[in-house]
């Protein structure tokens, strides 16, 4: 009996050992950390991949591969032919899409990314002004690895709440939601730097407009609760008592830092499609470009009022701009869907209704602190 059992165990062991899973040993994999998609003139996808090069003796710790095919996965298969290591996208951090690609619609590419279980949901998506290929290939002296630069720059600014977050999960979420459109940051390369220029406004998955970084701040202000963002606002200096008025510029530039903010969108009237947007903002004053006597409570009060007014006009302008472009990154549609029973809202329906909607903005602005010295 025992002998049979032992023989059986031996056979089973041998068989099991032969059934080893396909290894994906770290150093033998070409880890794609950034991928850029362009569209060529003949309508094909041009994929540019940055590989993490982990050979300590290599002069650069990244390598760039380019391949062209009809689909993004096809491009990867072609790129595999050029690579000494098997390409794997499990460490993908950023996917860059050129403006042209996004104007045609990004969902095919985004869906491919989301479908692949090895790709993280926390991958950042961004729109490149110009070509993604040339952005990735540009010379830069500061960073040896361009993908690190792009990733850290996006990550820092999203974590620092300068721009809204645009991970794959959030983009897919907004795309499949009926009453909200995704937004993606736009970046631009040149002079060895990469700059976040603002956000791309989308109508479902097509890029329809652009906003700058200050507007991105307001977008984020409307969308979610802020904790750390800061912004520079320019207001007219009428009514302030300023010490040496003569040499100073006509406008007053104020930098404020949000301590916390809360935005609340309510549907005021179902028939007229009228929304009320209430933003509560608690801030601290970081800098004013002129010597303003902020000990004077009147001055501070005036400053608060003027800043509130400024934010209000800016927010209204932003909403108008988005409406004109036909993109709803604020989620007014979601508010409508939530407030109206049996609305049966679909993306198409909302995009038809949205430009006609009216938004009343109400800002509650407060400066809590002005620094540690009076």
């Amino acid at each position: 009996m025992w002998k049979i059992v032992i023989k059986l165990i031996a056979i089973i062991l041998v068989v099991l050992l032969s059934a080893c899973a396909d290894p994906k040993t770290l150093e033998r994999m070409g880890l794609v950390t950034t991928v850029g998609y362009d569209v060529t003139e003949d309508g094909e996808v041009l994929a540019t991949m940055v590989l993490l090069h982990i050979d300590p003796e290599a002069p650069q710790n990244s390598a760039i591969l380019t391949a062209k095919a009809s689909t993004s996965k096809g491009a990867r298969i072609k790129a595999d032919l050029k690579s000494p290591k098997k390409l794997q996208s499990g460490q993908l951090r950023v996917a860059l899409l050129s403006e042209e690609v996004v104007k045609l619609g990004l969902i095919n590419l985004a869906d491919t990314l989301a479908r692949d279980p090895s790709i993280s949901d926390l991958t950042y998506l961004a729109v490149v002004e110009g070509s993604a290929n040339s952005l990735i290939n540009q010379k830069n002296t500061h960073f040896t690895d361009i993908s690190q630069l792009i990733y850290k720059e996006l990550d820092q600014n999203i974590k620092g709440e300068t721009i809204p977050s645009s991970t794959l999960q959030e983009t897919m979420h907004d795309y499949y939601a009926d009453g909200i459109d995704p937004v993606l940051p736009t970046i631009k390369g040149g002079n060895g730097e990469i700059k976040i220029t603002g956000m791309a406004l989308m109508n479902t998955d097509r890029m329809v407009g652009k906003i700058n970084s200050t507007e991105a701040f307001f977008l984020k202000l409307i969308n979610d609760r802020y904790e750390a963002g800061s912004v520079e606002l320019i207001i007219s200096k009428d009514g302030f008592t300023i010490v040496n008025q003569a040499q100073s510029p006509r406008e007053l530039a104020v930098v404020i830092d949000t301590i916390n903010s809360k935005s609340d969108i309510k549907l005021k009237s179902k028939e007229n499609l009228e929304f009320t947007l209430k933003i509560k903002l608690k801030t601290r004053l970081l800098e004013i470009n002129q010597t303003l006597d902020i000990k004077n409570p009147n001055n501070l009060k005036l400053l608060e009022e003027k800043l509130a007014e400024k934010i209000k006009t800016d927010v209204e302008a932003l909403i108008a701009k988005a409406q004109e472009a036909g993109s709803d990154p604020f989620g007014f549609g979601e508010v409508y869907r939530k407030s109206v029973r049996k609305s049966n809202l679909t993306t198409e329906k909302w995009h038809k209704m949205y430009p006609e909607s009216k938004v009343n903005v109400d800002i509650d602005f407060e400066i809590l602190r002005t620094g540690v010295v009076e």
Partner: protein
Amino acid sequence: MFFKKKKADSLNSMNQENIEEREMIPADTEDFINEMKKRLHNSADLNIKDRPNGITLIFLDSLIDNKMLHGDILACLHDGKVSPDQILKDINVSNVAKYPFIVEAVDTMLKGAVLIHTSGHPCIVSASIGTQEHRSLTRPENESQVLGPQIAFNESLATNISLIRRYLTNPNVCNESFSLGKQTNSGVSILYMKGIADEEMVDRLRERIKNIKVDSVLDSSTLVQLIEDNSYAIFPQMLMTERPDRACSWLLNGKMIVLVDGSVQVIGCPQTFIEFFQSMEDESVRWQIATFLRLMRIFSMIVSIFFTAIYVAALTFHYEIIPQTLLVPLGESRSRVPFPPIIEALLLEAMIELLREAGARLPTKVGQTMGIVGGIVVGTAAVEAGFTSNILIIIIAVSALASFTTPNYMMGNVIRVLRFPLIILAGLWGFYGLMIGFCFLLIHLIRQTSLGTPFLAPFYPPRFADWRDSIIRLPIGFTNLRPLQARPKDRFKYRIRKSNKKE
């Protein structure tokens, strides 16, 4: 001795043999001497001393105390005609007895007695004057600790029992002794506290010890494998200690201990898995510190078993889970290594085991040098040569270190060995293999029992009251209950209300 005569028979039936061997002692001196010589095969240290008045003394030189022989026996024997009963009275030794059978006579002689034969009487008087050859009591080496008593058991059964009796001045400490091993006839004692220990458990243990049919019991560590519930299991199910205080704390919790003559370690049972990770020192330090230490031991056990395997799994199959900050250092250190991670890990683990094994067998001073040479020189050289990655060296060193935090040597060994199958499983099927290994270990542990009681108590079956002194230790007032593990008859060590008056 008598086994040699009837080897075949003795194997078949012990009972029959006992009856046959009950041979009476010959009344005639000459016959008696011959019989004894025959039985001991003319051993060189067999000393036969004839006295003029028909008294013969037989003893083994090597076993007896000469001073006592002269002062307490020879000086007391009168010259006139004497009977065994008279001798019994005369001799100044406390441990004297009269035996009618040869077997008994030989037995006592082998344990250090002088046999006094008077011609014409079919019996002998035996007087125990054996020397107790043993080392003096030393500090515990394997379970050394800063606080608490600094004394360890030694190889003498009598001394060990006396140590325990010294701690527990209590008539309820019961001592049952057996002799085990056909060849060795080693003395084995079961100690337990009457009124606390569960009688059924004592019966069970007694039965197990009685039913052992082996050649020899040289040490308690072999006995423990014979009386354990499952000798196929990888985990030991009974705990051994060399600290008398620990043995006493077991007794007080209603457990039983088994002492074996000639071995330093005593066996305690029933035990639970978690007790292998406790140390007596936990009782001496503050409860916060004890809790921290215990949690750390459990944590380090987990680290020690799984750390290397996780490394192998992650690098072989799941590169996705490596955070970006770790990716470059890991990749760089791996890029020069020619082997796949599993081979690399097994090689290094084997090297560490070699070092450990070599260090353990060498004298302390040489051992230290070994450690330095092995650890630093070989380790650095291996990395320099591109043989292994330096991150793996760190991981393996940490897990080796972690395996030393287990207070019990036996359990430490288990943890050492368990790493290997898990590394192989991780190398075959990544996290899935690791999880299969983990589940197997879990089921294995759940299946084990210690003297019929669940091994994973108090976690499974859950006995929440006993959690107070398990993986954590609550302040001393909370640990006034005896753990249910040994089914103590008296659950309370003391009542808190009565004892807590600290005015």
